[in-house]
């Protein structure tokens, strides 16, 4: 059973006052996330990441399509008992303290006041909220509210947690702590689904990622799969290469860079197999041969560009 599964999930909004037209916020999203995965949901601003999370939390309703969480339709109260959610830029009740807020949420999961207090205390320690936990939330900075938001998402010790831009508003230390927290959740067997446009976070944490752009799923898979798709060929390092041989090989190379001491770095395009070229080295020695892999950033930029500049207003798409 997948932790999350969506089929053709689509959301249109009406835009325009006099003549409302549907705006495609999310278009036919098919996604599956396995249990125990740390899944990165990536995309530029306005790509449809938050819309997807809101659909999964049933804060908004789909125009068409279907989604299920832990094998049950979204919105099922029994499922909500097993999940956690951090909204983007969270906001809580000004007049409550961080501790009271967490106890309030813990009680919704059936915890007694004392159990709620114990969980609140442990989680606030974990996210780095110290004596401030007794302050009203109106006095909290953005980063501190974000930390409280992460704590409330974990108050029920969820099997699956949704984090919408979890690093937003955090200082470098906070970002590192949240990364470590996500890895600890993974080690406990918790599935983590987080949206971000910070690719380094995804590279550091995710077992699989999906890239959305302009409301459409542009790519999904493991980091290895995605970066292999974006492979830029091979890098062959040789020593003892004569100028004549180099001249003969040049038409088949992307680039040849002298490294000193008679060594060259030869870059081969993906279309050129390295084996025949090695056979033609005429006595030169192969030092190393490595695939030139793209970074997640390369894949991201490539996929986002590939979605083009097509309008998301249905009327224009139709025309």
């Amino acid at each position: 059973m997948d932790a999350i599964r969506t089929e053709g999930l689509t959301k249109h909004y009406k835009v325009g006052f006099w003549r409302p037209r549907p705006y495609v916020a999310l278009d036919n999203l098919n996604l599956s996330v396995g249990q125990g995965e740390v899944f990165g949901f990536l995309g530029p601003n306005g790509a449809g990441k938050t819309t997807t999370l809101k659909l999964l939390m049933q804060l908004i309703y789909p125009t068409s399509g279907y989604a299920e969480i832990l094998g049950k339709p979204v919105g099922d109260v029994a499922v909500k008992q097993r999940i956690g959610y951090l909204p983007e830029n969270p906001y809580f009740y000004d007049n409550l303290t961080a501790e009271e807020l967490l106890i309030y949420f813990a009680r919704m999961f059936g915890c007694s006041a004392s159990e709620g207090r114990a969980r609140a205390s442990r989680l606030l320690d974990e996210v780095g909220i110290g004596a401030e936990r007794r302050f009203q939330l109106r006095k909290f900075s953005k980063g501190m509210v974000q930390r409280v938001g992460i704590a409330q998402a974990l108050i029920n010790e969820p099997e699956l947690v949704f984090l919408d831009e979890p690093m937003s508003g955090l200082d470098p230390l906070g970002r590192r702590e949240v990364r470590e927290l996500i890895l600890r959740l993974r080690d406990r067997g918790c599935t983590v689904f987080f949206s971000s446009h910070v690719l380094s976070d995804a590279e550091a944490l995710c077992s699989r990622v999906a890239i959305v752009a302009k409301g459409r799923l542009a790519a999904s898979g493991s980091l290895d799969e995605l970066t292999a798709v974006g492979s830029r060929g091979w890098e062959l390092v040789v020593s003892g290469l004569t100028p004549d041989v180099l001249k003969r090989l040049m038409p088949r190379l992307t680039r040849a860079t002298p490294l000193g001491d008679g060594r060259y770095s030869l870059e081969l395009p993906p279309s050129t197999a390295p084996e025949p070229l090695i056979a033609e080295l005429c006595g030169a020695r192969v030092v190393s041969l490595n695939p030139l892999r793209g970074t997640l950033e390369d894949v991201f930029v490539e996929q986002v560009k590939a979605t083009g500049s097509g309008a998301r207003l249905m009327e224009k798409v139709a025309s």
Partner: protein
Amino acid sequence: MRAIAIIAGGVFRDSIRDRIGYGLVFFSIMLMASSFLLAQLTAGQDVKIIKDLGLAAASAIGLFIAIFFGIGLVTKEVERRSIYSLLSKPVTRTQFVLGKYLGLVMTLLINLSVMAAAFYGVLLYLDFTTLDGAKVAWEAPALDPRMLKAFALIGVELMLITATAIFFSTFSSPFLSVAMTFAVYIIGHFGEDLKNLNAIVKSVVLPYITKGVYYVMPNLTALDVKSAVVHGLPVSGSSMLLATASCLVYITTLLVGSILIFSRRDLK
């Protein structure tokens, strides 16, 4: 039921810490106390003035809290997005609406009780400091328990206004919600005039419209016994029960409507 109680408790805790709420109740109590000074200027009418002003202050402050806090219950949660975290917990939208409503009703009833206690405190002081001979001029005793009936019906009215405010706030902007809730309050208090508009207006169509509005809108005049209790007139239990039952039907209808609308709403 548990989720409703927890949400109601949260609203109660949040609102009793709200400085505006405190300020309003304090203002009301100060108004009641100052009415004592005003009453000194009018021989024989002192107790009536204190009762009039006290009941009016309790009603007006309660109305203000019911409308502005009632509308904020849903709109503030949605605008500030605090609802996102709440609805991701094992809570349905029905439980959300009912919990919010009951939380504010609880706050209002406690505020009303505080105001009633302060009101009786002022009257007790008046009763204590007035000579027995002067009390003969009073239409009703200072500590007349019948005034509790007026407070009870103010409570019922505030419950209805809170339900109205929540209903409008589930589908319209805060400004419109305030305007429409206030309109319901005004129409509810001038229902009889609307019903009999044909006696003073020559139009053929307009009286039908106003009569239609009269039958649809709640009749809040039935809940207004302030004048009767101030003058020591009897207020029958059956008329109170009938007015309360009628309001409960409206409250139920408004809450069901709120739940139906809010359950289908996209929380963008």
